[in-house]
């Protein structure tokens, strides 16, 4: 046998199926796609000084808007917290119900599913598709394929197009995009995402899951024998045989009638009866298929079913399986849930108590202090006044704990030096002020405080302790 240098991909023509899991998959697909395509169009009124898009990643101004929440770069820990929650959430879901992410929510799964429906819509179901695949290229096939691929392309374009809307004002960008006025990076992004969606969703499909994606390996490692996974109960199905044979000799054969329906519907084209395997994305379509067959031949459902490996062992020995809620509520999942919830609560707390003003102070260290001609001592500081509201605000900075201390700045002249100075900070911005603090002749080095107070009804306050340096032993 000559050795094959490569293996040609075997096209998967999965069959249409209906059932509770398929309907759930429809539901998830609908919801996720709707969220993805609709979100950028939702408006959110933040006043005249901030964008009115509900969800917006404003890279140019380094802001992230999410409905009523606005994240500044220095608050990136919120995003980090969400990522950690997503990670732990994945542990939680995986340890409870196996690779549910892969089966239902993963974008690759959702778009592949969508494209498979297109296949079915244009070319017909499994057999028709396989036939067309084998048929020689002729005008009819070319027309069919051209039609199908243009639908792929349209969906891909919409996918890539929706992505960029998260990064700029959606209606404006949408219009600019078609009048060729959008920035180059927008076209490049849409181009790349269109291309990847077209090839990954249209042509590579299960190969992404099997060869390219690291997730299945990681997820398999997070499963244990108490996680729910899709399993073929071989002690019940084997030995398999056709319905005819089984009828003749019911004693000898198991429940599986070898009708291959479970293989036919599988979107990754595998045979679950060979045991749990990396190609299985746990979409449960084979459960729908087999349940239907079991109903037709009058056997109980669940020859292929969501079950834990532990249950399988028990059932094989003739013991009843554990109820599902017990499987879900076990120490491991509860601990994950606890950690997940605690982080979520902490984030919510931080979100609720954060203020929309912030002051940072960095003292000049070069030189640390300065002797003035009248003998007084001056220190200089760089103040950053942060206004996180979408309206301009007046803020007041006061010096506390420095007797006789006065301040002035690069814009407020030395002749107007005073212990308290007021500043206008533009909407949603940081105002950097170089502040000079002078203290009388006999001042000594000491700690003192800058107190920032907003002058609006909120009167938010932030204080920063810093140091005033003076020559040792006075001037």
């Amino acid at each position: 046998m000559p050795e094959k240098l490569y293996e040609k991909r075997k096209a998967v023509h999965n069959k249409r199926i209906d059932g509770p899991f398929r309907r759930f998959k429809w539901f998830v697909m609908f919801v996720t796609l709707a969220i993805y395509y609709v979100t950028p169009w939702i408006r959110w009124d933040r006043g005249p000084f901030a964008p009115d898009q509900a969800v917006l990643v404003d890279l140019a101004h380094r802001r992230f808007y999410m409905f009523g929440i606005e994240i500044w770069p220095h608050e990136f820990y919120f995003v980090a917290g969400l990522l950690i929650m997503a990670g732990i959430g994945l542990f939680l879901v995986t340890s409870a119900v196996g690779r549910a992410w892969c089966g239902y929510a993963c974008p690759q799964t959702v778009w592949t599913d969508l494209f498979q429906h297109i296949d079915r819509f244009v070319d017909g179901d499994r057999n028709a598709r396989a036939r067309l695949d084998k048929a020689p290229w002729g005008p009819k096939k070319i027309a069919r394929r051209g039609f199908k691929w243009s639908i792929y392309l349209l969906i891909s374009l919409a996918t890539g197009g929706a992505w960029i809307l998260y990064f700029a004002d959606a209606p404006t960008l949408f219009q600019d995009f078609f009048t060729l006025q959008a920035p180059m990076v927008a076209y490049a992004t849409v181009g790349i995402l269109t291309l990847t969606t077209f090839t990954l969703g249209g042509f590579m499909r299960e190969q992404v899951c099997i060869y390219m994606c690291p997730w299945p390996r990681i997820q398999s490692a997070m499963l244990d024998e108490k996680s729910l996974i899709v399993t073929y109960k071989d002690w019940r199905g084997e030995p398999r045989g056709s319905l005819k044979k089984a009828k003749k000799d019911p004693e000898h054969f198991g429940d599986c009638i070898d009708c291959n329906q479970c293989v036919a519907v599988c979107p990754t084209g595998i045979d679950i009866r060979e045991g749990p395997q990396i190609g299985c994305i746990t979409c449960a379509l084979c459960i729908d298929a087999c349940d239907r067959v079991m109903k037709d031949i009058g056997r109980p459902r669940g020859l292929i079913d969501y079950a834990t490996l532990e249950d399988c062992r028990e059932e094989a020995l003739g013991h009843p399986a554990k109820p599902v809620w017990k499987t879900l509520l076990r120490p491991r999942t509860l601990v994950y849930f606890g950690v997940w919830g605690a982080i979520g609560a902490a984030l919510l707390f931080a979100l609720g108590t954060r203020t929309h003003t912030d002051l940072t102070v960095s003292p000049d260290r070069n030189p640390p202090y300065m002797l003035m001609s009248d003998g007084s001592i001056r220190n200089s500081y760089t103040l950053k006044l942060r206004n996180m509201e979408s309206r301009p605000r007046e803020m007041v900075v006061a010096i506390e704990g420095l007797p006789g201390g006065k301040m002035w700045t690069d814009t407020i002249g030395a002749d107007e030096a005073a212990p308290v100075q007021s500043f206008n900070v533009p909407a949603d911005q940081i105002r950097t002020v170089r502040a000079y603090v002078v203290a009388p002749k006999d001042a000594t080095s000491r700690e003192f405080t800058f107190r920032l107070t907003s002058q609006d009804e909120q009167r938010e306050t932030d204080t920063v302790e810093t140091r005033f340096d003076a020559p040792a032993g006075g001037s």
Partner: protein
Amino acid sequence: MANKRIDEPTGTETVGHEWDGIEELNTPLPRWWLWTFYLTIIFAIVYVILYPAWPMVDKATEGVLGWSSRGQLAEKMSAAEQAQQGFRDQLANIPIERLPDDSALMARAVAGGQAAFKVHCTQCHGSGGAGDQKLGYPNLNDDAWLWGGDLKAIQYTITHGVRWPDDDETRFSQMPPFEGALDDAQLGAVIDHVLSLSGKAKPNAAGTQIFGDNCAACHGPQGKGGRDVGAPNLSDAIWLRGSERDALRRQILGPRMGVMPAWGERLDPVTIKMLAAYVHSLGGGEDFVEVAKDPEVKVDEQP
């Protein structure tokens, strides 16, 4: 290869490696994977032809595109210079008295001046502009100015330097040495008088007399100094060369006088303007007397 054989359940040949009873199947790679691999090889070859890649004795092969990171840097630098041109033109055209009115331009000038200061001025005045009392480099952060502290005076000082022999318009002043002219008692008396000007000692009649005869011409009867001749104010808290009696004695007997190069010879007027703006911004800069009195006044550009 040793134990090549066909694996029973899968019908696939093994590669002949075995670890603890685990054997590896010889499974062919998917076609797209191989093609991707070939493409990377082609990409590498094309890359080596187009770009500098292959190390030779003294440098790498050049590549037919002629690209180099140095060339790219030069391109970026000239683009940056071009981008700055508008700002530099603006700065060249604005009289320095009007610079504070344009706060955005002023801010850019200060930033540019800070960069230039780091290159040209820190050697004497220190990176924070604090100078050095021992060596007699003036502190630029305080509010005492020998030659004036408004933008124009600073610009003039930078352009023409101080006691710079090659510049006819340089800032120039000289204090005569009193070595031999005063005896010890007289010297002590006048030092006491000078210190008394800022309340550091008790006044005395002999010192006042000597001061009036020898020093008041430049430093003024009250010791307030004079900017037209660059005479330091002796009545404030700031001492260019120290306030200890020893330091004063040395300065009276054989005065040391600083020299600053005329930067107009080396730097372009725009850079000097930026330097002036930066030095002015350090905290001791003064307003223009004319402008402060009457904001509408026209001030000419020439010093």
